[in-house]
């Protein structure tokens, strides 16, 4: 007789549970190295850094749930940061409009991705690559290849580095609100259900009356907007935008979503898993750097950990 778990436990995705177990394990390992790892200050700092990746991974997850991928993240992040800073340089009105303007630029690029994937039926891997190249081209032409001199607006800096309540970093609050909104969208709205349906089988979703093309287009617009928003946060964090500021976020965002148990083929995955994946990756990067591991070692361990964890729970079923 097999043991039946109580209902609430049975509903826990083993992937998400493993991811959280790995987080605990990492913290324990870290605390053996230095007691600092369990201090609230350190943990809050990690969560703050994680929220930048968290915002990007949220958009990435929406797209991956469709069974697509968004490779335009690096330069859409840069576009968001640079355009918001550029708007700030245009006086009072520009400062106020900085955040919405950067966001709009990101949504526009995301829409190009979305139209390409949904209506022109171009594989997402290639159209987002092309949009990434165009975004890079626009920014290189705009900045002349140098890091732009405009600095971030006060609002951007406040959101990225300040704290209003109980010393909680604002960036973390933003990520928490965004996460709550995303969970609501996935579980309580037709749009969210449509995303899962399309990820499982777009044909079936179409035949059940979902306007699949519009949903796909909007999902890419969301991803673009969130990438640009993360770019604004990053620019606020460093108080200015930089060339290639988004390069370090493409692979970690995909890894975070996948480590959180979302299937790269689409249709399966929960937002809690993505949260776990984001924290896991941020902690891993942080612990490796605190241990003064050199960059090459970090890259190698990073690769091994991703493969090791996926071998634990990310394997596909055998073909039969």
């Amino acid at each position, binding site marked *: 007789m097999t043991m039946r778990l109580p209902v609430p436990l049975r509903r826990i995705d083993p992937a998400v549970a493993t991811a959280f177990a790995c987080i605990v394990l990492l913290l324990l390992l870290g605390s053996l190295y230095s007691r600092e790892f369990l201090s609230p200050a350190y943990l809050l700092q990690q969560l703050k850094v994680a929220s930048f990746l968290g915002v990007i991974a949220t958009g990435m997850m929406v797209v991956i749930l469709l069974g697509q991928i968004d490779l335009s993240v690096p330069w859409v992040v840069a576009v968001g940061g640079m355009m918001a800073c550029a708007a700030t340089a245009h006086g009072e009105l520009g400062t106020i409009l900085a955040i919405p303007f950067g966001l709009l630029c990101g949504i526009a690029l995301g829409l190009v991705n979305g139209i390409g994937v949904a209506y022109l039926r171009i594989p997402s*891997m290639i159209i987002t690559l092309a949009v990434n190249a165009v975004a890079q081209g626009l920014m290189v032409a705009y900045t002349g290849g140098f890091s732009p001199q405009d600095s971030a607006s006060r609002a951007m800096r406040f959101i990225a580095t300040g704290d209003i309540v109980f010393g909680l970093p604002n960036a973390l609050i933003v990520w928490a609100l965004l996460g709550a909104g995303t969970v609501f969208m996935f579980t309580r709205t037709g749009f969210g259900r449509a995303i899962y349906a399309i990820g499982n089988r777009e044909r079936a979703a179409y035949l059940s009356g979902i306007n699949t093309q519009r949903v796909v287009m909007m999902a890419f617009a969301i991803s673009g907007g969130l990438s640009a928003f993360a770019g604004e946060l990053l620019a606020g964090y460093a108080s200015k935008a930089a060339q290639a500021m988004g390069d370090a976020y493409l692979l970690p965002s995909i890894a975070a979503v996948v480590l959180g148990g979302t299937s790269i083929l689409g249709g399966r995955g929960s937002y809690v898993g993505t949260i776990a994946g984001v924290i896991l990756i941020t902690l891993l990067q942080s612990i490796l750097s605190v241990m003064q591991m050199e960059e090459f070692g970090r890259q190698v361990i990073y690769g091994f950990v991703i493969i090791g964890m996926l071998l634990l729970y990310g394997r596909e079923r055998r073909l039969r």
Partner: protein
Amino acid sequence: MKDWRYRLAEQRGTLLALAIFLFMFVVYVSKHPAGFTANVVQTAANKGVLLALVAMGQTMVVLTAGIDLSAGMIFIFTNCLGSYIIAGSTPIALLGVVGVLLVGLVCGALNGLIVIYGRLQPIVTTIATGSIYYGVALWLRPQPGNSDSFNSDIADFMTGRLPGGVPVSLVALFVVVLVVWLPFRRSAIGRAVYATGSSEVAAYMSGVPIARAKFWAYTLSGLLSSIGGLYLTFITYSGDASFASGGTYTLYSIAAVVLGGVSLFGGVGSAVGAIFGALAFRTIGDLLFVFDLDPLWQPLFQGVVLLLAVCVGSARLFQIRNRLDLFA
């Protein structure tokens, strides 16, 4: 030859890529101040061959409906390794060349083994292994550089010209096609790769050796990327563990594969098409220089051309009669 229509249709992607490349190259050469000279061709060939080799490797994996996001990192890793072991007297340095190729082969095989026996998705697997290969490259070459006794004779020969003005790099590319691609395409394994890419389930049901097909596709991809890395070492005389350049080559190889008429859904296309796709993509970048435009506009120009090129592919949508076929 009654089946010429069928054969033509099969090669349509390759022929289209060839046409695009020829058109761009003719424009490039006719606007080039030096014209069609051996020097211009040699420089263009050396640059183009790098991407062509990585794109060939990418083709192997894409044909199985997979993707190799570590291709650029294997390219960088073997470049750094080559800058160490292609050194000393020529026979010793040639051993080094063999060593570089072996390492590329092993990197590719590792990708294949994880994808097949780990049953992980190629995208994430190769992202992770790419990170490992890049880490090792960085360990070898924290700063760009080369070995004191770097053998530049081999390098000069491989990037030079044969008597008659033919660039050696083009000949080398041709030899790679003859020695690697054609035998592969005609072998049972090669057919198994196409079958696996068309429909893995159908291939499995028909008893096609799927595991072996995938293994060789990934392994050859590693080998071809390492030949590319070798050429980068020959051209620059040094190894440079540049994350940006690894990422760029991975992404450009996918672009080249698509321009070359290889379907990202697997089972359709040829490495020869990918070569022309790569050469065309490289020529796009160079076109701006001969038109005397600001080099700052080059990335934008390249991006827009890529965007338009991939949109052209959606012309097939006009042929769709049943709306449901959109979602196939």
